[in-house]
């Protein structure tokens, strides 16, 4: 399968997970099943397949910034990197929604954190950590 095709499939799939998280208060368990399990695991499966197949043929490495940049010149490895973002960001978003629900943080306040996580992963994590601290004075899991 050409990498472009997989890219075109993966994006709407991840988006579906984010929609499920936005609507999570309507069906909390179903939203978690989709956004914390089904979609991240499907993306992880594609990621694992790509790394198994192409890691050994890719240039570059982890040793320096230049090596990492070279690594991502390989199309399938760049695609794997993108799937990594999609899978982990969604998994993190699902965790934020779950944690907020368990600790009584209103869902509408979590939505901006979800948008940030979707667009800029770690910035969303930071935003949720701050939100959570203001509500329940907790940072640790």
């Amino acid at each position, binding site marked *: *399968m050409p990498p472009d095709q997989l890219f075109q499939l993966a994006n709407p799939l991840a988006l579906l997970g984010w929609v499920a998280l936005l609507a999570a208060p309507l069906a909390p368990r179903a939203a978690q099943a989709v956004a914390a399990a089904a979609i991240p695991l499907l993306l992880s*499966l594609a990621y*694992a*397949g790509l790394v*198994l*197949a*192409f890691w*050994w*043929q890719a240039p570059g490495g982890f040793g320096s910034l230049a090596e990492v940049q070279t690594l991502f010149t390989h199309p*399938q490895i760049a695609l794997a990197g993108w799937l990594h973002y999609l899978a982990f960001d969604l998994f993190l978003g699902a965790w934020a929604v779950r944690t907020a629900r368990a600790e009584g943080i209103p869902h509408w306040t979590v939505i901006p954190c979800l948008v940030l996580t979707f667009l800029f992963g770690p910035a969303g994590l930071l935003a949720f950590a701050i939100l959570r601290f203001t509500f329940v004075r907790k940072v640790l899991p």
Partner: protein
Amino acid sequence: MTATLAAPRLAAVSAPNRQLVRLTLFVALAALPLMAAHVLDDRQFQGDNIWLKPLKFHLALAVYTGTLALFAMLLPEGTFTSRRWRIYLGVVSACILAEVAWIGSAAALGTASHFNQTGLWAPLYSLMGAAAVILTSLALVMGLAFWRHRTDALMLSVALGLILTFLLTVPIAGTMSSGTGHLIGTPVTGARFPLMGWSTEVGDLRLPHFLATHALHAVPLAGLTGSRAAVWVAAAGFTGLTLWCFARALMGLPPF
């Protein structure tokens, strides 16, 4: 006839062996990323997608341990609970996981697993041969346990199937691995059995290896008839068929 025999047997099944069930599930589920790689990777090895071989091994080993897990339920409760059994099953599990890790790694790197005589792969190949004998020994060990409990035709057939799997597989696989490849004879133009991929023009040692390994499925089918005589005939017939295919392959000829 089958139903009347199966009914008391089903009433007496033991609880599943957790080690074997876990191992079977793990080996089967670990094939999922290989399937993804199979779809995504176009590299070929000896005319097949590079990931076909590891997938076949995951399937074959999951079927092997899954069948052993099912058979184990026919032995009396508590047969596998001793410390010795748990350690032995742990060693067999380690060998099975080492085999699939080795074959999967070779595929990822685009090189041969079996018959690879380059660099570190050569000693690894010998080591994996030893691991293969250890993992096959579970069939023998369980077969002997069934032999001690051969109270009816079914138990006898499972005993013979398991013991034959070990006795036939080890020499056939050993012969294959001591050569330079699975094919014997020329010319090889690429004519092959559908699905299974064995050669239909020269000797292919993978066919008798396949038959030998599946004695543990073939012979117990005769046990379902309830007749001990049928079991002995099936065991002898299947052994003959396997050895005949082995001999044909050694002569460089296809089975028919």
